[in-house]
C-alpha cells in the first residue's frame, strides 16, 4: 500500500471511489472533473491524500489550509471527503489519511484542524474522537445552496 499526495493521474480512480460517498451525487464528466482538479492542483493550500493499492485509490481525504488573522495569525485546516473503499475498511487506512492531513496542518502551523461528520454516523464520530478530535465542543451548521 502506498500513502501519498494524489496527482492528476489518480483522478479517474478517485472519482470511482467517490461514487461510494454518495450514490445520488450529481454525475460529472471527466472533462469537468479535470478542470476542477487543475484548479485544485494550482492551489498550494489544498492537498489531496490517498492510500493507493496497485494504482487504485482505496482511501482518501483532502485538507485545505485557511489563513487566519486571530490566534497569532495561525491558520485553520479543514478536512473533507474522508472515505475508504468498502472492501478496505477496518485496516486503519482512514486513520493514516487523517494523520497525513494533520501533518499538513502542522507544517502550515495551523492552530486547529476541523472536520464535519453526519449527525447519525456515530461510528465515524467514535473514530474521529479516537484520532483526537473533540465531537462536543462545537455545533456545525451548513447551508445548502441551489444551482
Amino acid at each position, binding site marked *: *500500500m*502506498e*500513502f*501519498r*499526495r494524489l496527482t492528476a493521474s489518480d483522478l479517474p480512480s478517485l472519482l470511482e471511489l467517490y461514487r461510494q460517498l454518495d450514490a445520488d451525487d450529481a454525475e460529472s464528466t471527466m472533462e469537468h472533473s479535470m478542470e476542477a482538479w487543475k484548479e485544485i492542483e494550482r492551489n498550494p493550500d489544498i492537498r489531496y491524500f490517498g492510500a493507493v493499492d496497485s494504482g487504485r485509490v482505496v482511501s482518501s481525504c483532502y485538507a485545505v489550509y485557511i489563513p487566519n488573522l486571530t490566534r497569532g495569525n495561525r491558520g485553520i485546516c479543514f478536512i473533507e471527503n474522508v472515505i475508504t473503499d468498502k472492501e478496505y475498511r477496518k485496516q486503519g487506512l482512514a486513520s*493514516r489519511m487523517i494523520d*497525513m492531513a494533520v*501533518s*499538513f496542518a*502542522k*507544517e502550515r502551523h495551523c492552530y486547529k484542524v476541523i472536520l464535519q461528520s453526519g449527525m447519525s454516523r456515530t461510528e465515524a464520530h467514535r473514530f474521529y474522537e479516537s484520532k483526537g478530535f473533540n465531537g462536543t465542543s462545537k455545533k456545525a451548521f451548513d447551508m445548502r445552496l441551489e444551482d
Partner: protein
Amino acid sequence: MMDNYSMIQAAADDFETVRQITQETIRAVYPAYYPAGAVDFFCRHHSDESISADIASGKVYLLCDDETIVGTVTISGNGINRLFVLPQHQHRGYGRALLDFAEQKILSQHDTVRIDASFPAKQIYLKRGYRETEYHVVRTENGDYLCYDVMVLSKGGK
C-alpha cells in the same frame, strides 16, 4: 519480516526520521567500504537542506513495516537517491521493496532509471540489470578519495 509494509510519502514532520535513517546507516555501513573523509562527505551530501527540500516537493518515501519505519528512498525525476535501510533491519528484503517501488514509479514516466551507486550496493544494482555509465572520483576535504558509479536501468532491461 515484510508482513504488512507500506510506502508513505514523507511529510514535514518526518524530517528528523529521514535524517536519522540516512546518517545512522551511513555511519554504520560505509566505514567498511570508504575512508573517513568519504564517510563525512556522504553525511554532508545528504544535508538537512536537501532533505527538507525533497520532502517539501513530495519526493521522499518511508518504508513502514507494521508501524515501524525501516527505510527511506527519494525519487527525483528518473533518479533514485538517498535509499537507505536501517542497519538493524537490513537483509530482510526491505531494500528490494524500496527499489521495486522506486523503479516502478520512475519507469511509469521515464525510459530509464538512474542511480549513483555506492560500493556497498553496486552488486545489488548489477544483479537487477543496471549498467555502469559513468565513473566518478571525488577528492574529499581531508584528501581521502571517494569513488562511485552512475548506473542506469533501461525499461525492459530487467
